[in-house]
């Protein structure tokens, strides 16, 4: 399928422009509510997350204490042994070293004694323990969360798939398949990433900021306030640059999309581009777009690369400010050296989460936009409920007894849109084994009747009786079990040829599959394939010609052995020889079954018990070939233009 390339070809290095959700909090609440069965795990993960951040935050302070022990040892050794601390301090004052005296007096120094290695070992041991614990907690948190998120996403994907099975056909016919596919694939993917990474990282960032801020204020309120001054600076830098780079990434995204489209259609229409002499203009067009993409991407790339050096400058500014002020306070004995170092550590840990938080918020936003689309889909109206069991049971018995393929439509009315009447008061009686031909110009809506017969759509008025039983007393599956379909759209799924033929009757034996294939003239073809019936049909079934595909769908209908058949005679892109096979197989399949045929062949309409003539979606005439011709109405003119052309040679 050639469609918009946006979904398939994501620009490698950039991110899509951020989408906003309609109702962020509502969607988030609904999403979190889905985690309820795992709430114990979620709470434990939260607890572990808090514990992990707390221990990580405690680390620098403990390391700071270790530095103090070292520093005190260094200073202590410089003082004469035997003195008390007070003596040493007053000696320093006497020498005019007032600042150092103040510093020493605030320290826990024993003159003459070197570094207390036992105490140092203890502090470092504690630091190692705290760091290990932090890592262990973080591991526990991510491990638990991975389980929770993956289970939740498993459930969500499952619900979406179940929803697909319960939606009315109307939904599929009124929504572009591409849109639906993008929702069930891209949006769920995006949501998984958001939950897995975005949420826990955002939580980690917020907790870290809070914890670090707390420690900073505890160590030194003044230094904390001073270094907080640099935060607005960091924010301004991030926001200023990030906003611009967001804009450029958006432009880059758009340009990549349109350039990829150009490449896609130029290469797909390669022959036309050549023979229609379009190589030069197309190349000029490409060069212009390539140039614009280059401009946008280097700008985006550059701007996102600016953030890091800018933030480093802010961080170093912060460092110097803390060093100057901290140095002064250490010298005045108001703060220990270890605390200053711890403080520097904290201020470094502080800038990281701040720069990341913007990106994480964006991620969350786009995740919620995706979640919203998925939830909207899950909220779509489903098919009306099936009949109540007791009525059903009686009717089913009746249906089962007389399962012969008699069908009766009584005063049926139907419209797709409330204000556009299509089928009004239509009645038709089809005896078992009879053929009904549906004819009409291309695009006249011949499938509407098929939709009602197989109960893809429910009728608005009147009733349809299958072997005497009202459709409404049967489940949809019971109705459909009576039908077999061979449509022009030869849908096969990605599996073996055997499984595709046995699609309507799982568990069919190999002999039955081969017999059905033989009846559909496709057995020989399949056996000639390298892997025979085990040959895999790939995604687009591109390894099999359209004629063979059609034969396979006929074989599929043979094996399902329905009492009523719906058949589309149209064959496109089928060569003459295969066409003969297809027609013969279709004729065999119809033998002994009630058939509704979307007719393209003269012989079919001549032999049909009833012809239903459709135009602009409406049933305009019905009757036998001769009587319809006699009326000189729409059928007559249709016959002369569409069928008589081929018949001219008769």
């Amino acid at each position, binding site marked *: 399928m050639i469609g918009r390339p946006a979904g398939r070809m994501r620009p490698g290095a950039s991110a899509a422009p951020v989408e906003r959700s309609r109702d962020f909090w509502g969607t988030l609440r609904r999403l979190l509510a889905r985690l309820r069965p795992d709430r114990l795990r979620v709470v434990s993960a939260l607890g572990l997350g808090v514990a992990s951040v707390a221990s990580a935050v405690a680390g620098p302070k403990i390391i700071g204490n270790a530095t103090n022990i070292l520093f005190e040892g260094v200073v202590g050794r410089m003082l004469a042994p035997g003195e008390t601390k007070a003596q040493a301090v007053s000696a320093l004052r006497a020498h005019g070293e007032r600042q150092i005296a103040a510093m020493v007096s605030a320290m826990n120094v024993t003159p003459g004694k070197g570094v207390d290695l036992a105490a140092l070992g203890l502090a470092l041991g504690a630091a190692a323990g705290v760091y290990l614990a932090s890592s262990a907690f973080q591991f526990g948190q991510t491990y638990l969360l991975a389980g929770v998120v993956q289970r939740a996403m498993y459930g969500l994907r499952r619900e979406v798939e179940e929803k697909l099975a319960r939606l009315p056909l109307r939904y599929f016919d009124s929504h572009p398949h591409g849109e639906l596919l993008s929702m069930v694939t891209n949006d769920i993917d995006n949501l998984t990433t958001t939950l897995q990474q975005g949420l826990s990282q955002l939580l980690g960032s917020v907790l870290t900021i809070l914890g670090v801020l707390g420690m900073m204020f505890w160590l030194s309120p003044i230094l904390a306030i001073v270094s907080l001054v640099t935060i607005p600076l960091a924010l301004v830098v991030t926001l200023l640059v990030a906003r611009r780079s967001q804009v450029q990434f958006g432009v880059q995204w758009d340009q990549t999309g349109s350039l990829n489209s150009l490449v896609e259609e130029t290469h797909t*229409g390669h022959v036309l581009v050549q023979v229609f002499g379009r190589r030069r203009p197309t190349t000029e067009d490409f060069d212009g777009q390539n140039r614009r993409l280059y401009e946008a991407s280097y700008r985006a790339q550059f701007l996102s690369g600016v953030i890091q050096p800018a933030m480093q400058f802010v961080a170093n500014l912060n460092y110097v400010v803390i060093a100057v002020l901290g140095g002064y306070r250490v010298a005045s004995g108001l703060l220990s050296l270890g605390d200053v170092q711890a403080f520097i550590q904290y201020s470094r840990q502080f800038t990281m989460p701040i720069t990341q938080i913007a990106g994480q918020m964006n991620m969350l936003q786009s995740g919620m936009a995706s979640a919203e689309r998925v939830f909207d889909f899950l909220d779509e109206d489903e098919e009306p409920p099936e009949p109540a069991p007791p009525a059903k049971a009686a009717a089913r018995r009746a249906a089962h007894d007389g399962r012969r393929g008699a069908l009766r439509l009584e005063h049926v009315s139907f419209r797709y849109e409330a204000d556009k009447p299509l089928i009004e008061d239509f009645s038709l009686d089809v005896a078992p084994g009879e053929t009904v031909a549906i004819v009409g110009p291309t695009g006249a809506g011949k499938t509407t009747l098929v939709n009602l017969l197989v109960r893809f759509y429910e009728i608005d008025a009147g009733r349809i009786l299958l072997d005497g039983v009202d459709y409404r007393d049967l489940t949809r599956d019971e109705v459909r079990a009576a039908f077999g379909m061979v449509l022009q759209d030869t849908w096969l799924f990605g599996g073996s040829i055997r499984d595709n033929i046995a699609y309507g009757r799982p568990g069919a034996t190999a002999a039955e599959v081969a017999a059905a294939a033989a009846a559909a003239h496709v057995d020989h073809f399949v056996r000639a394939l390298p892997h025979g019936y085990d040959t895999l049909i790939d995604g687009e079934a591109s390894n099999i010609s359209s004629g063979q595909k059609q034969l396979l769908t006929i074989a599929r209908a043979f094996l399902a052995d329905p009492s009523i058949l719906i058949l589309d005679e149209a064959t496109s892109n089928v060569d003459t020889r295969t066409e003969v096979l297809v027609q013969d197989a279709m004729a065999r399949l119809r033998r002994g079954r009630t058939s509704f045929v979307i007719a393209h062949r003269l012989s079919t309409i001549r032999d049909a018990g009833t012809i239903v003539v459709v135009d602009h979606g409406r049933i305009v005439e019905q009757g036998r070939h001769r009587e319809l011709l006699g009326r000189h109405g729409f059928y007559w003119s249709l016959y002369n233009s569409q069928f008589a052309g081929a018949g001219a040679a008769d």
Partner: protein
Amino acid sequence: MLTRLLRDYLRPYRWQVALIVTLMAGQTVGNLYLPNLSADIINRGVIEGNLHYIVRTGAVMLGITLLVGTVAIVAVYLASKTSMGSGADIRAAVFRRVLQLSSRDMDRFGTPSLITRNTNDVQQIQLFVQMALTLMVMAPIMSVGGVILAIREGAALSPLLAVAVPVMAAFIAVVIVAVVPRFRSMQVKIDRINLVLREQITGVRVIRAFLRNGPEAERFDDANLDLTRTALYVNRVFALAIPTVMAILNLSSVAVLWFGGRLVSESSMPIGNLTAFLSYILQILMSVMLAVMMAILLPRAMASAERIEEVLDAAPSVADPPAPRRPSREEGVVELDDVGFRYPGSEMPVLEHVSFSLHPGETTAVIGGTGSGKTTLLNLIPRLFDVTEGRVLVDGVDVRERELEELWRSIGLVPQAAYLFSGTVASNLRLGNPDASEAELWHALEVAQASDFVAAMPGGLDARIDQGGTNVSGGQRQRLSIARALARRPALYLFDDCFSALDAATDARLRAALQAETRRSSMLIVAQRVSTIMHADHIVVLDEGGVAGAGTHDELVETCPPYREIVQSQLGEGAAA
């Protein structure tokens, strides 16, 4: 492959690259010097209570930071321009090369593959170059420089480096080995789920008619469970990886403090050097981590480079002759002179000994089953393929001696698959004749039996057409494709089985209108339907690559058994009588 591609396409940027490397080296040196200064601030400033020194060194530090930042920004600017610029160059080179390729070359690669090579693969290379110019240049300088400086600050502590660095490198390598293959298989499993969902959406009617909702749900559940398991594994490995890296970093710091502390207590190391060493070891470990992680990008970039080089190395099998000849007049006379075509190495030729000619004002039809070589035959005339035997003359000159663009100018091609370009109806019709007036376009549409529906489209000639023409029906697409050829007013029309989606009545009207329109042109129609071609002036019946008969419908029904067979199967028993 990767090195050759980069060598070729980075050559125009070699001065930028040299400058980037220099700047990166400078930036790295600056970044390595900073811990030195902070050590000094502590050693001589804080410990000695020298506030003046702190302020002065702090100012130097800020100055260096500013310088390093500026250098870094310039380097990123140049690196972005270089990577995106060389990417754009490669993209343009691939695009131009694909436009030179013949249809056979296209078939060899496959169109989707060429699209991917022209877009995603180029992006991979671009990303790789960007990373290479920034991180890959920086990481080794940082590692080596860091090691040298760390040893200078505290040689006695260097054994710690010898332990921590290999541990970090080994751990990251193990994680990559454990995760990357699973990561790829996760992508395959996501694709699998998407495939199942796609099938459930496109096949919704068949699934419901055959009561297969239950088994389909199982099929989906298998894929879903499979994906969930792999995703869980990958995420759990990551759950282990990040805390472990943090633990390695933190424990290295603690170890530095412990062993360094002992050195400090023995007075064999100033306390400030310890702080500097600490900064270095962290910087080294981070660079090692980045360097090892780069290993993930390399195989992917190499694969992409190989796929790109394959296209760039592909010599077009059809090219302009060195000394082209022009025909004296353009009338659309085509002669096929004992033409044969076979794929290299194949036993059976696709076509052999085919001779016939096309003349202005005449309609010639070629009919035959699938695999009879009809389309190949038609493609030989605009040189989409070249003959392997005999020759094709257009207006008296062998097509291989004519300039391609000039040859194509006289041809109106309607290919089998009607493809439209995104734009408007008018922009599509003007594809081969940009100067066509609106009146001419409407005329072409009328002949092609397309004026009614185009007039009914919102905007008429300016109505939007989606890429591929997916917003109009197959029959409309075919008629627009015919109108597009007509708007070109060529001397020679080539219709490749392009009436298949039309109903018989439209087909008949179209053929009648065409005949009147193309009185001065030659016309070749390739078809499978007898009704489409039976009124042609001349019919050539192809069977298994050879001419099985030629003449008018009536003659062929009499003399050509394969033709009679086709007629009987399509028009019924009585038709051949």
